């Protein structure tokens, strides 16, 4: 390791390291300053952490889609953020209908299940179509081409849904049953947050089970490892890839419903930022690695929630929450520079991200 450094370290490496260290230093400084200020009580911190976990659970489910597709096709499905958006945006109409029929609040569990099912179906449907129409023909193309296609598909889907459902904000009805808090001792947790955290955890377990223990999961993993060999072993590669997209899509659709439970508004652009953050989470945990996606999601969610108050407030930055997204981006850059394989990922051959 040392010999690599000695000979190959360039000026640019030094500069990058210097900037990285400076940022790390500022973060530590800010943290200490904030804690010393004593502005926040431990209850507030707990609140922030719980919010972070809820958000993180959502990121984790979306991240699964990115990580599965990357594992199997070695490409970033840029349009996954729209896969995420399609489910809840469509399901919002179903929810409206259920409200009109009086079912929504009378049978909340049934309503939730219906809405989840629709969202998962729509999202996976979009993901499936995406793969079939835009990605499959380009599997052997040089790497820039599918990337640009994905970007194009992303915008196309965004604006298609804008055209279909309108450019305005579509309110998602809230469930009476989920209004208010649950209290455990001194901890207050919003009912919605609790549902989201539990829902995300449940979904993660189910998905992990599918990937690890079912035949499909095994097929997915072998195609990720080595497409040709998997084909030689009799695995239908095309079908496996389709299933992968469908699974990632379903996960994103569920994430979408959880998202609108927390923030009851859907609109055509809602996938953009969560998409990038979920991608960051996938990379953070180790791209291609399913538990990594989950871990990355939770960590990112908490860091994003706690971060502005913890790191930035102490440095005297006004309105630190405005810079919330910056935190996520900086984490992304950091990981890709200093540890591209992520937390749980294996070292890739030449350490080139």
């Amino acid at each position: 390791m040392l010999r690599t450094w000695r000979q190959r370290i360039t000026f640019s490496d030094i500069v990058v390291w210097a900037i990285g260290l400076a940022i790390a230093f500022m973060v530590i400084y800010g943290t200490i300053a904030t804690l010393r200020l004593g502005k926040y009580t431990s209850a507030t911190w707990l609140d922030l952490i719980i919010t972070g976990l809820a958000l993180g659970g959502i990121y984790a489910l979306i991240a699964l889609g990115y990580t599965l597709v990357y594992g199997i096709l070695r490409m970033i499905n840029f349009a996954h953020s729209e896969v995420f958006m399609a489910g809840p945006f469509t399901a919002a109409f179903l929810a409206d209908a259920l409200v009109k029929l009086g079912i929504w609040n009378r049978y909340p569990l049934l309503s939730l299940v219906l809405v989840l099912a629709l969202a998962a179906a729509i999202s996976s449907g979009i993901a499936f179509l995406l793969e079939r129409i835009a990605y499959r023909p380009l599997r052997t193309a040089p790497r820039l081409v599918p990337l640009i296609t994905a970007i194009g598909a992303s915008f196309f889907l965004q604006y298609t849904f804008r055209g279909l459902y309108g450019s305005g904000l579509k309110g998602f009805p809230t469930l009476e049953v989920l209004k208010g808090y649950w209290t455990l001792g001194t901890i207050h947790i919003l009912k919605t947050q609790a549902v989201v955290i539990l829902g995300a955890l449940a979904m993660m377990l189910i998905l992990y089970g599918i990937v690890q223990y079912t035949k499909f999961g095994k097929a997915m993993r072998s195609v990720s490892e080595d497409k040709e060999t998997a084909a030689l072993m009799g695995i239908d590669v095309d079908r496996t890839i389709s299933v992968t997209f469908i699974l990632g899509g379903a996960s994103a659709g569920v994430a979408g419903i959880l998202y609108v439970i927390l923030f009851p508004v859907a609109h055509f652009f809602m996938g953009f930022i969560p998409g990038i953050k979920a991608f960051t989470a996938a990379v953070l945990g180790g791209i291609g690695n399913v538990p990594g996606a989950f871990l990355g999601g939770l960590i990112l969610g908490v860091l994003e929630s706690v971060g502005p108050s913890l790191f930035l407030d102490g440095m005297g930055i006004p309105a630190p929450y405005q810079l919330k997204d910056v935190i996520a981006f900086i984490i992304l850059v950091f990981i890709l520079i200093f540890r591209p394989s992520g937390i749980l990922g294996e070292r890739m051959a030449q350490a080139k991200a």
Partner: protein
Amino acid sequence: MAVLVSNKVTKRFGGLEALAKIDLEVKEHAIHSIIGPNGAGKTTFFNCVTGFYTSEEGEIFLEKRNITGLSPDRVTRLGISRTYQNIRLFKNMTVVENILVGMHPHLKSGLIGGILHDPRTMREEVDAVEEAKRLLQFVGLKGKGDLMAKNLPYGQQRRLEIARALASKPKLLLLDEPTAGMNPSETQEMVHFIRQLRDELGITILLIEHQMRVVMSISELITVLDFGQKIAEGNPAEIQKNTRVIEAYLGRGAASGLGQAAATA
């Protein structure tokens, strides 16, 4: 005098030891071959020499200069050039452009020169294109300069890759399976050509080869690798009779039966 010396070079990938304490010396103006069964570590060795990989242990010297761990561009600028097993040309660039890129270490013009077209830059470009055309003629691709590299037939692509490698005026040329995919007459030509490179241009050549006919006919020294270890070294006659070598290729016990056949190859 040795052009290349590798001293106990070791390369590991995770738990796998792809190269184990390889000692090798390539003499000046020699044609030196590295052979061995698939997966023996031959290309890995090339990658260590060119700086694409950094060895875990050991050192590599180019004419007494320690080049261990240097980045590939530095290694090339110091005088080592290579071709690739699976031909890596710049497909969407023309034949001449491929060679001009190969000349990079000798072309000095940069951003400003490129924009202003000052006399020195223009002269450099003109000279470079002429040199490229000379190289094209040398490898037998005269007149094909403006074709897209990806449109050349296979054999010509191989020759273009060699021309590109020659463009940097290397002291040491690494050829990775230069006759792969060639029929016997093309192979003959390539053998002749490689000799010419050494005889006319004075380049030292280190090559990886699978075709025994080629190896035996042009090599002065042969190093045999198997599972990352050097198992034999010597001139063609010695290697052909070497039991360990025969076994490495054909399996244990083959030595006795085939010893005679190998000796008469």
